[in-house]
């Protein structure tokens, strides 16, 4: 796709800058698909960020970034509210101010206590990880409590009578990424016996057509997050150095960059 990198070039289009593994990008994709909004998806190379990304999100230099009518918006929750306020069809947030406040409260709780704690558990070990996993388990008890209170055979999602909504999109990453991160991080918080309502919600959410169509294969996610964890724990660099040294000793003339180090840098910049 030709681009001078200027944000103004994208006038009249909806474009989403993303990375395949990112649950934050996925949320925005789900919101766009839910509303039937046409968009161009641009897969970013996070080891070699495009001028467009750097111009569109100079503050965080991260995905997702939505560019609409030449205007860039960053941060997944900000983007979803923008989408909801710009395209009125299929509302994501409720209409009533109190219901909206509750949706925002739960979204904030999920981000602080579930999403952030999971990220921290992924990139820590020993006592630090134990502490994060304990916090995460407590947060999951709250989520289960909320699922038990709000969901039943007729109301499958937190969006209530309207089907999926804001809270579902914010929590949705758990239906695919949580298992992956548990496996990579070597801990367990998912507990079907004690979280029956949450597990039922996850199963239902996975079956939503646009969710099902966009979930990345587990093996690919496991491979990626394994590198993230090792990079953050400083375990990967000696391996890369050793592999590079071995590669150089086999072919002293080669200037080829070791392929895995690309993912190492990607992991460091996104985490």
């Amino acid at each position, binding site marked *: 796709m030709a681009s001078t990198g200027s944000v103004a070039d994208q006038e009249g289009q909806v474009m989403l800058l993303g990375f395949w593994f990112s649950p934050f990008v996925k949320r925005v994709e789900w919101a766009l698909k839910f509303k039937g909004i046409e968009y161009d998806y641009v897969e970013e190379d996070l080891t070699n960020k495009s001028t467009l990304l750097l111009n569109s999100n100079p*503050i965080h230099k991260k995905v997702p970034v939505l560019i*609409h009518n030449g*205007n860039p*918006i*960053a*941060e997944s*929750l*900000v*983007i979803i*509210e*923008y989408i909801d*306020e*710009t395209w009125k069809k299929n509302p994501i947030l409720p209409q009533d*101010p*109190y219901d*909206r*406040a*509750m949706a*925002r*409260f739960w979204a*904030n*709780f999920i981000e602080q206590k579930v999403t952030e704690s999971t990220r*921290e558990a992924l990139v820590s070990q020993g006592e630090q990880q134990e502490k994060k996993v304990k916090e995460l388990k407590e947060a999951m008890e*709250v989520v289960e409590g909320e699922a038990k209170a709000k969901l039943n055979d007729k109301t499958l999602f937190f969006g209530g009578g309207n089907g999926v909504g804001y809270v579902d999109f914010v929590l949705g990453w758990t239906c695919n990424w949580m298992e992956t991160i548990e496996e990579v991080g070597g801990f367990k918080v998912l507990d079907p016996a004690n979280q029956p309502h949450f597990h039922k919600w996850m199963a239902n959410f996975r079956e939503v057509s646009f969710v099902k169509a966009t979930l990345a294969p587990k093996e690919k996610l496991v491979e990626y997050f394994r590198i993230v964890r090792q990079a953050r724990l400083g375990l990967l660099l000696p391996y890369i150095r050793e592999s590079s040294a071995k590669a150089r000793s086999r072919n002293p003339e080669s200037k080829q960059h070791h392929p895995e180090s690309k993912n190492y840098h990607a992991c460091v910049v996104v985490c």
Partner: protein
Amino acid sequence: MAEQKVKLLGFWVSPFVYRVIWALKLKGIDYEHIEEDIFNKSPLLLQLNPIHKKVPVLIHGDKVICESYVIVQYIDETWPHCPLLPQHPYERAMARFWADFAETKLLITIAIALWARGEVQERAVKQAMEAMEKIEGVVKGKKLFGGESIGYLDICLGWMSYWLPVWEEVGGMQIIDPIKFPATSSWMNTFLHHPVIGDNLPARDAMIEYFQKRSKDISESDWFEGIIRLHLQP
């Protein structure tokens, strides 16, 4: 619905509570203030906010809303006169983006600069000033973040105008250099001189005493060590 009784559970020195106070006052909404002792939380607070056990909590009729920025948006949507968030979705997105940036990148770093000393404090001050440069860019050429009148972002950043100078004094550090941040310094002055804001601020001497007293407990806590590890760049 808007006519139902409004109550606010608050704590006298909390900048998060003041966001809600300013939003209520700017819109001329009558409310009852219920002062909480956050070191000895009342059964009412624990019942109304069992998840976080924190202030502010807004009670409107039989509805309970927690988290300052959720409350401010609720107030703005329930009483739409004197709007706080901009009308256009893109400008609303920008206000929310910068409010999130200030909360996650600036305020936390300043908290570290307040309580830490030595090399950790120096790094925190440096990181805070880098974040402050971004804020300076947002308010440059404007009277207020909201333009001509106080808006959502002014309210979310209000702590910068009054709490930050107190923290600078208690922490023995400086982040807002008027020469480096002329637009932000000018904004602080404009914001504080608004009658609604100026009339609704905690007493400065009492704030200094409070934050000085908190210094030892916080700087030696595991929580603070965790904050430094998560938020201070190497």
